């Protein structure tokens, strides 16, 4: 059944894949993110990180005290490149390669 249960719906990461990563010795949220791609899609982990942490705790891969979320990356919400282009005060590059 867990073959078909998705933890990260953006990147299609299943419970079974996470259990496999844990079996390989990867016990932290950062490691699982980089092994499975979990949390790198459009929602940036907002939907899946709690489910992942529950699973890590249930599998005894981490203790509640030791669990850490992965580094939140800016921007907080998706922003278009054109909007970003209008932000003032960018330093010009010193020299092109």
């Amino acid at each position, binding site marked *: 059944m867990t073959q078909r249960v998705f933890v990260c719906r953006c990147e299609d990461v299943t419970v079974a894949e996470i259990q*496999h990563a844990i*079996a*390989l*010795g*990867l016990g*932290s949220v*950062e*490691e699982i993110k*980089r*092994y499975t*791609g979990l949390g*790198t*899609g*459009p929602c*940036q982990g907002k939907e899946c990180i709690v489910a992942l942490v529950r699973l890590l705790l249930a599998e005894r891969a981490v203790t509640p005290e030791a669990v850490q979320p992965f*580094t939140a*990356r*800016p*921007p907080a919400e*998706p*922003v*278009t*490149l*054109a*909007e*970003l*282009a*209008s*932000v*003032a*005060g*960018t*330093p*010009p*590059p*010193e*020299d*092109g*390669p």
Partner: protein
Amino acid sequence: MKPPVTLGRADEPLPEACDVAIVGGGVMGLSTAYAVAESSKLRVVVLERSYLVSGASGRNGGGVRMQWGDEGNVRVMMESIEICRGLAQELGINLWFRQGGYLFLARSEAGEQRLRRNAELHHRVGAPTRLLGPEEARELVPELDVHDVRLAAFNPKDGVVFPWPFVWGYAGQAIRRGVVVRTHTAVEAAEADGAGLRLRLSTGESLRANLVVNATGAWCHGLNHSLGVRLPNRPHRHEILSTEPLKPFLDPLVVDLASGLYFSQSTRGEIVAGITMPDHGDGGTDVDQSSSLGFLAHLGRTLAAVMPRLGRLKVLRQWAGAYDVSPDGDAIVGPSPGVPALLQLCGFTGHGFMMAPAVGRMLARFIVRGERHPMLERWDPTRFVDGRSRAREDMIIG
């Protein structure tokens, strides 16, 4: 293939002593560990302070190219790309390697001359680079603004990989061949121990090794200083971003020489983009991995000018990583000045990922058989002491 027992652990038992201790679990350290284990019975231990893809190897753009300005670099990358073609099968993992080519755009006379010079060199050594006019460049990438492009260069064998599985793949196969990979354990100091070295670890343990490889990239000074080795490479922060995924529409990785902008579409569909930024470092050895709004704005402006349609694309995340840069732009590989048991594997600037498959083999042949590849002469760490250092490469992007 059956999965390896682990991918490195914080509680992996360490031997008392080993032949080769590799400090740093990035792509350089792990490709070397794999190649040594593949070709010898030497006992190899990899020590990583954090988890395996935590350094630059887990933060880079995955660009892989043979379009360089210097013959030695072109040859190294021809070999690396050849290895990449069979590597997914060799490592038993999907690397998402896609050969969509690299397209360089020149907008100045100097840029045009560089591309012409490169194309001649590439032709001579057998790399299939073609020069293209602006309109031909637009046939490859239809939405490009080419109004002031004078010349473009395209090599269809260049491409992109997804860095994470690459690193895990090397780790898994190294472990399967007997390499001990200990994570969450930093090397805090080192001292001479007979003809070898003894490493002092953050866990209170120590490990003796006949040879130690410094594969700690931007952090390489810690280990070097504790052995009195002074080298002139310095850490550099480089930022990058990725966007929402789109259906495949962009084949090559595009580099705009005038601005230092590069962008590609990963096999997962996102646009991955970076650009040359002024160096905020103070010339010291502190490593900075913070992200900046200035980068987003500058990249947004430049990319929206080079390919206006991409202006509508949403950025999902940005991050930064650090790599070390040497003053002549060449890597620093081999026995250290005054401490021959310490092998450097540093100084790869913004192209260490793509070189790792070939360089890991090259260093393994040196360790196992004493074989000196011609590039090892050039990358010799003692060149800064006796004045043999010379800048040769003018196609460094980053």
